[in-house]
């Protein structure tokens, strides 16, 4: 059995692989089978983020050209496109989407990640992430303004002088305003964590909320004081 073709083919090759697949894949699949996966349209039907509406108000002509009115339909289009860019540019190489219950991550980013928030089309394949060069993004919604993101995508060093993030000039038109891709990726980033009952407010710069008693953060300039 241990040295025969059939033993190796059937037991080691197929058998052990299937065993591992049953244990390590089918069990979690069955555990989470009760959670139905949300489509992007269903996400959009839950309501728009303020930041998406803000983009429409700030850049009315361009927004109208790219997406039309800020409604659930256009929101779904922008989210999908933003997600594709997030994946295609490899943003997930340096930004995780997963707050762990250890290493004080709750204090830095907000509540610990839970299973149901990954049950949607924009987590396909799931974007837990692989490395954190930049901060985690699953609690990013509304943490920073659209303006901050626009400046940051154009040249990350404008907002975070020590940043090693690439500049994404192709998210912008020649006049310096965000183009379709720019607005989509900002819509996507501002969606990450918008389902949370409470938005986190600490930007990761300056003293964290837990230490506020010792030193009150400079609310106005905390992002610049890096």
């Amino acid at each position: 059995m241990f040295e025969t073709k059939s033993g190796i083919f059937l037991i080691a090759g197929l058998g052990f692989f299937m065993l591992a697949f049953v244990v390590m894949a089918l069990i979690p699949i069955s555990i989470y089978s009760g959670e139905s996966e949300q489509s992007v349209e269903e996400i959009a039907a839950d309501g728009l983020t303020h930041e998406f509406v803000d983009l429409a108000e700030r850049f009315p002509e361009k927004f109208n050209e790219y997406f039309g009115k800020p409604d659930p339909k256009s929101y779904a289009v922008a989210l999908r496109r933003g997600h594709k860019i997030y994946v295609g540019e490899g943003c997930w190489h340096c930004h995780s989407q997963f707050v762990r219950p250890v290493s004080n991550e709750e204090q830095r980013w907000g509540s610990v990640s839970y299973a149901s928030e990954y049950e949607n089309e924009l987590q396909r394949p799931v974007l837990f992430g692989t490395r954190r060069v930049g901060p985690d993004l699953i609690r990013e919604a509304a943490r920073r303004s659209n303006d901050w993101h626009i400046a940051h995508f154009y040249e990350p060093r404008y907002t975070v002088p020590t940043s090693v993030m690439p500049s994404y000039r192709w998210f912008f038109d020649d006049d310096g305003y965000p183009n379709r891709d720019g607005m989509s990726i900002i819509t996507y980033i501002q969606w990450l964590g918008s389902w949370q009952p409470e938005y986190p407010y600490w930007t990761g710069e300056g003293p964290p909320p837990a230490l506020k008693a010792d030193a009150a953060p400079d609310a106005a300039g905390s992002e610049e004081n890096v």
Partner: protein
Amino acid sequence: MNDKIRNSAMAADPRTLVDEKIVLAFLSASLAYVLIAMLAGLLYSLQFIDMYPFAGIEFWSPGRWRFVHTQGVAYGFIANAFLGALHWAVPRLTRHPVLDRRLSWFIFFAWQAILVATVVGVLFGEAQALEWGETPVWIDPVAQLGLILVAINFLTPILKTKGPMYVSLWYFIAAFIWTPLVYAMGNFLPEYVIGGSAAGAIGGLFIHDLVGLFVTPLGWGLMYYFVPIILKKPIWSHGLSLVGFWGLAFFYPLNGIHHFLYSPIPMFLQYGAIIATIAVELVVTTVIINFFGTIYGRGDALRSNLSIRWFYIGMVFYFTTCLQCAFQTTLTFQRIIHFTDWVVGHAHLVMFGVFGFWIMGLMLYLLPRVMHVDEWYRPRWNHWHFWLTGIGMLIMFFDLTSAGLVQGFLWKALAPWSDSITASKPFWLIRTISGTAIIIGQMLFIANVFMTWRLSKSGALQSTPTQHDPTHEDDAGAPALA
């Protein structure tokens, strides 16, 4: 093993068994991709030290070039090299040629087309969000078909063999079954069928199984073949070979979830994956003991034979990564090192420090034989290749491991995020420098291969074909060191 081959009537002329041209073709493609993938990695690393030369240009987006680095290494460098070595080893081990040589050539060109399409696809922003599964969705089915054809092409001669099979063939059979299954699981299920945390579990299985069930069994199978042949000694213990194979087959597929510890994947499965990972380390120890038992008494080969040196340094690195893994997979270590450069260091040590080193040893052995030369254009360059690569690899590993600890503890201390970036920059500079040393080493080797090939065409280094028996092993193995 070798005597069997030599005495067999079928193998009276090994060249009827082995298509040497395809071995050379696959190995050359592998060398081309190691250069492309490493240059992409070097380019990407420049982003981290504020020296990226093409900032703000869409085509040169660093994130896209990172895909070229990881995909190029896995499917260009390692897969091509293994396919080349398998075309050499499988017919010799089974005494049957592959199913069809035309199929081999079809696979060769199809695989290169898949690679080119992958590189072009990811550079135009079509990647998928799964490490090593980034291949654009429209290439996945073609690559899947290619892997099935590879399995058929090699399994046919293996199934034709009668009687007991050598260790290498156990690993090869298993790898040819596992690889298409793993590829299908990772590239289709999370994309089309399963979402959410369960897909995370499958993604973890995929990235781990690609190393553990595709690269590792082929790598060890080739080691079990080439080490005894070069040393002219049998493997030390058949029993340990059995333990190593069956232990790997049982425990390795259970490891995947250890990539997402503290995630919403059920905790009991995370514990299971951790235990299975530590078990793999114990299995690996038996394999390492077996190979060091084999070389015992022939330690001089480490000095005199460059292939053996690459193989055994690779094995030392293998033991190191697996030992490291047994610790880093524990929840205690995970608190600090997850998401840091520690993991990046680990990945580089295992993919290049182990399998890359083995491939270099294989190339040193195989290339002169398929080019029919007795010596290298510049034997010294091969030594430079070894030392630049080895020292570069060690520096990169220690550098990234230390960087990971610095980052992890700064995060835990709730230091401003930018502090972790500032603290990492010196480490990232050293990474770029050590990577450059590795690349210079590969360039020297590639130049040496090219010049040797050119001279082999002109006949300057050519041995008379009748005297050259590719199954003949001189003590030195690589002719350069004779």
